[in-house]
């Protein structure tokens, strides 16, 4: 017998009687997510929200606050910044100062945004960049993770995706919170209306 067969046989032999999966419909509120709650929670976890009306406004904010030579974005609407050439080496992103990425939606209860691989250009981009900016549509906020996975089921499939909630952080030294562990030192969410 292979290890696989041995493990499966032991599982089949030892597993308890089958039980039903619970009905999860009660966890869905049926409401629209609150932008105020999203902004509040995001702020509490170290992120920053900025309300904007256009891509031009976002571009202007970036130009004013970052050294534009080190800004990278796969977003076609944001012109004047570096894009990500197809099949480029992820290691080449080591010096990126700011990455600007589209997210599909935000979650009010925890301040997270859902980003899939096609929005990242390269998977490592939202993690390796010194600062991360994300653009979401103000109408795309869900109340909780229950609605979030409903929404994900309607989106195209992905090879990699992540919920990102605020800047990278650690409290491993005496439980003192430090923002900027290995990844972004800040996270800005542009909420577009």
């Amino acid at each position, binding site marked *: 017998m292979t*290890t696989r067969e041995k*493990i*499966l046989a*032991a*599982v*089949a032999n*030892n*597993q*308890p009687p089958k*039980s*039903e*999966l*619970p009905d*999860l419909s009660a*966890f869905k509120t049926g409401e629209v997510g609150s932008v105020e709650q999203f902004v509040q929670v995001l702020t509490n*976890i170290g992120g920053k929200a900025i309300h904007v009306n256009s891509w031009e406004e976002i571009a202007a904010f970036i130009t004013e606050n970052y050294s534009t030579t080190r800004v990278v974005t796969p977003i076609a609407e944001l012109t004047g910044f570096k894009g990500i050439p197809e*099949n480029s080496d*992820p*290691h080449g992103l*080591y010096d990126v100062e700011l990455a600007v990425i589209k997210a599909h939606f935000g*979650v009010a*209860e*925890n*301040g*997270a945004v859902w980003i899939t*691989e096609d929005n990242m250009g390269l*998977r*490592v981009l939202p*993690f*390796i960049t010194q600062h991360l900016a994300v653009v979401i549509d103000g109408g795309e906020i869900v109340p*909780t*993770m*229950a609605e*979030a*996975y409903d929404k994900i*089921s309607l989106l195209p499939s*992905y*090879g*990699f*995706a*992540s*919920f*990102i*909630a*605020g*800047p*990278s*952080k*650690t*409290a*491993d*030294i*005496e*439980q*003192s919170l*430090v923002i*900027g*562990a*290995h*990844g972004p030192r800040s996270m800005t969410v542009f909420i577009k209306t």
Partner: protein
Amino acid sequence: MEVITKDHAELAENFNRDEERVNWHDETLWWVRQKRDKMVHQLPEWEQLREAASAIKNNVLGNLHNYLQQFEANAQANGITVHWAADAAEHNQIIHRLLNEHQVTRMVKSKSMLTEECGLNEYLHEHGIEVIDSDLGERIVQLAKEPPSHIVLPCIHKKKEEIGELFHQYLGTPLDVSDPQVLTEAARGHLREIFITRKAALTGVNFAIAETGEFVVCTNEGNADMGAHLADIHIASMGIEKLIPEKKHLGIFLRLLTRSATGQPITTYSSHFKTPRMGQQMHIVLVDNGRTVQLGREDFRNSLKCIRCGACMNTCPVYRRSGGHSYHNAVAGPIGSILAPNLDMEKYKDLPFASTLCGSCTNVCPVKIDIHDQLYKWRQVLVKKGLAPTGKTIGMKVMGATLSSPTIYRLAGKMGRWTLKYAPFAVNNSFNPWYKHRDMPEPPEQSFGEWYKQNRGSK
């Protein structure tokens, strides 16, 4: 890892020598517990979420045979190579073989308690492969050549001054620097260099989804992602109990996990790995290592529902005052004490006794594992197998004889009162474990029986 011969009580005694540190450890973990409470109380549906999570995990245990095969087929269809490991040795050999095939001698690893359980770092080190742990807390204990003392907060037993010394020695920070901000920045520089130069990355798995063949890894630091997305080969190690049936169930577990663990609404990163990136290899190692045995133990199988949040440790009065290393096991605290005896009953026979059975662990567990009941049940198993501590066995026998005979009972009471009064040195010494950290009580003049006879007996 060195061979441990001391039991929990002896190791806890070492930890308790530094009273100030024990108090700090106790208060810090209680503060984490309070952060958890604050988060939990904001969700009126918390108890329903726990109920749902528990029901989903029960369903997983009852259908594991199907879910494992479903997950394997879907993961393979996604381009992931699936391996099966019966025990720690096979797990380590598989990883070693994969690294050899890619001529890799340096690997970066994010947090994985399973690899701690399997002793992977030591094994690879003996075979000439360098492993660098990338979670900050794990890197710190790795530099200190210690195991993690907590599954979520690996170096919670260390003071910042000690970490400063380690960083001075290994990372070249100036002497006497202990500011967490400065130390974290130094680790950031060091580890980003590691991420960029390592061709192999190993991560743990928080949840694996049978329906889609993908797996989810949660971190706050972003270290799992940094390693995995820069490496040519990504290996994910998981215990077979990490499966969940469908993706939508993450909508329950991700709401519970971090609120329970650290009092955050969610981890910074909840990354869903489904296919390898272009040109990359992705491997999953499904590990048994005693889990199928535990699955067959009716009283203890429930422990396989654990999602490794660490809430039971933060709330445990014994864990908080004895420290994680006292449990001499990869997973410490109440949950570790019911998982460990399954792996080796003789080696971990002390752990189910390292509890007051207060039940706080059971109350905070997000997947409703009956932890304190299982601790109590393990004690019964261990006593029946003759593995109870000798002192306890003799004590219980003497107690049994004393309580079953009124004559011996009365005599023992008299002797006890006489001893406390006239020969206190006979009990106020280090042979009496009760005397440690406590004073013996003032003896009463007479027993209640004697008093009753004197005052009411004639009526």
